[in-house]
């Protein structure tokens, strides 16, 4: 079924491309027969997936279904056992540095340093992307932090912030360099209603410039903001359907 949907999408893409209208649907994520095994256990088993540019795809499924494994492979943090994955045409194994420039990632755990302030953390990460103009960096940090209501907490040490505020800052970290693909592993976890609203609004707005792949256990959120919902089970994509809000 998944293979069928993927092939259908591929053929749609092909038809649109041959019609010359490439701006409508071009592939952002192409996953082909991707597997990841941990000893005898499979985290991901022959998964096929195609996500179009500017699409918002939600991954759902029980614990251990393979959502985080898929996101970690796409984020270049884990090596697949077999299969292929490409992001905007770049192979996640062979062109890791290229891929890393294109993606923003939120994982289960925060990637921020507790001893540094929010601003110092964000400056550090944005400078690793080669942005060095102090004023522009400051402007970008303030602007992105304001999207999640944390602009007045930037000077606080991250270790002193609540887990919800830390999560918001971690999301800001992931978007600070304006990535073309956002990979978010359960980004709504530990966010308060205001934080959830900020993130929902951001994800809806960002579709013009960014593709989003996120995982969640909340069907309500998935139906509300995503275009399609993929359900993973035992390392396979068991179901792919359009979201109700699409």
């Amino acid at each position: 079924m998944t293979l069928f949907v993927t092939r259908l999408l591929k053929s749609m893409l092909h038809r649109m491309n041959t019609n010359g209208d490439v701006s409508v649907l071009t592939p952002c994520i192409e996953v082909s027969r991707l597997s990841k095994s941990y000893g005898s256990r499979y985290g991901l088993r022959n998964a096929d997936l195609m996500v179009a540019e500017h699409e918002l795809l939600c991954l759902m499924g029980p614990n251990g279904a393979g959502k985080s494994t898929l996101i970690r492979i796409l984020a270049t943090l884990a090596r697949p056992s077999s299969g292929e994955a490409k992001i905007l045409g770049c192979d996640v194994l062979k062109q890791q540095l290229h891929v890393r420039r294109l993606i923003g990632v939120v994982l289960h755990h925060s990637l921020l340093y507790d001893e540094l302030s929010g601003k110092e953390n964000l400056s550090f990460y944005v400078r690793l992307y080669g942005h060095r103009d102090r004023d522009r960096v400051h402007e970008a940090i303030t602007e992105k932090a304001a999207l999640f209501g944390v602009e007045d907490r930037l000077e606080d040490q991250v270790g002193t912030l609540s887990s919800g505020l830390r999560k918001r800052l971690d999301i800001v970290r992931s978007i600070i360099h304006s990535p073309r693909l956002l990979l978010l592993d359960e980004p709504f976890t530990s966010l308060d209603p205001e934080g959830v609203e900020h993130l929902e609004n951001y994800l809806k707005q960002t579709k013009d410039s960014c593709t989003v792949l996120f995982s969640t256990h909340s069907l309500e959120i998935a139906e509300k903001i995503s275009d399609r919902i993929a359900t993973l089970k035992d390392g396979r994509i068991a179901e792919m359907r359009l979201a109700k809000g699409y």
Partner: protein
Amino acid sequence: MSTSADEPGASFLQEVREILFKDLRLELRRRYEIYSIAIFALLANLSFGFALGIANPNVLEFVPATLWTSILFVNMLGLTTVFIREMDKGSIDGLRLAPITPQAILLGKTAYTFTLLGLGSIFIVPSSMIILNYSFQSDPLLVVSVLGLGILNLAVIGAIVSALAMYSESKALIIPALSLPLVPGTLIPSILATGKLVAGVTIDGLLPEIQFNLSFLLLMIAVLWVTFEYVLND
């Protein structure tokens, strides 16, 4: 502020500098590592002083070994955690996600370890000289260079060991086990060179030890340069 795959990004040296400055900033916020180095240096040198006896006429024979034992244990106790700390806090994924080469991460971490161990030596060496009542007779610049080279080698070993141990469940065993075959390669020439520095030997007399330590350094860097990418990825 946007990033595309083809943009050049930060230069290699900028990447190294960012990681070094970030780690130093973290260290200044924590401070306990610097304090622990100072306290350990004092404790180790006092122990050696009492064990050997300050009035012992043969104390100079033991000075190089005691000095490098202190430096080695400061490195092993405090600084081999340079990658492990990132791993334990999960922030290593942040570095792995950044569009920088693994070698820049490695060099940044090594530079940090070297800086901290160098700062630690500012406590270790003078306290050793005062407690064991000796001085270096060679040119001060030569003393700093030779000690600096040995410390740099230990910093590289610290970075290697920390990187290799970070994914291990039994870090407490892995760190000394991995250090064991690597440390003598630099410790022995450094101890021999220090003995000569105390005796006032010039650079000509120190060339064998300097050459050996330099070769060791180049070998370690070459091995790490090639393998570190695989070490960093799980």
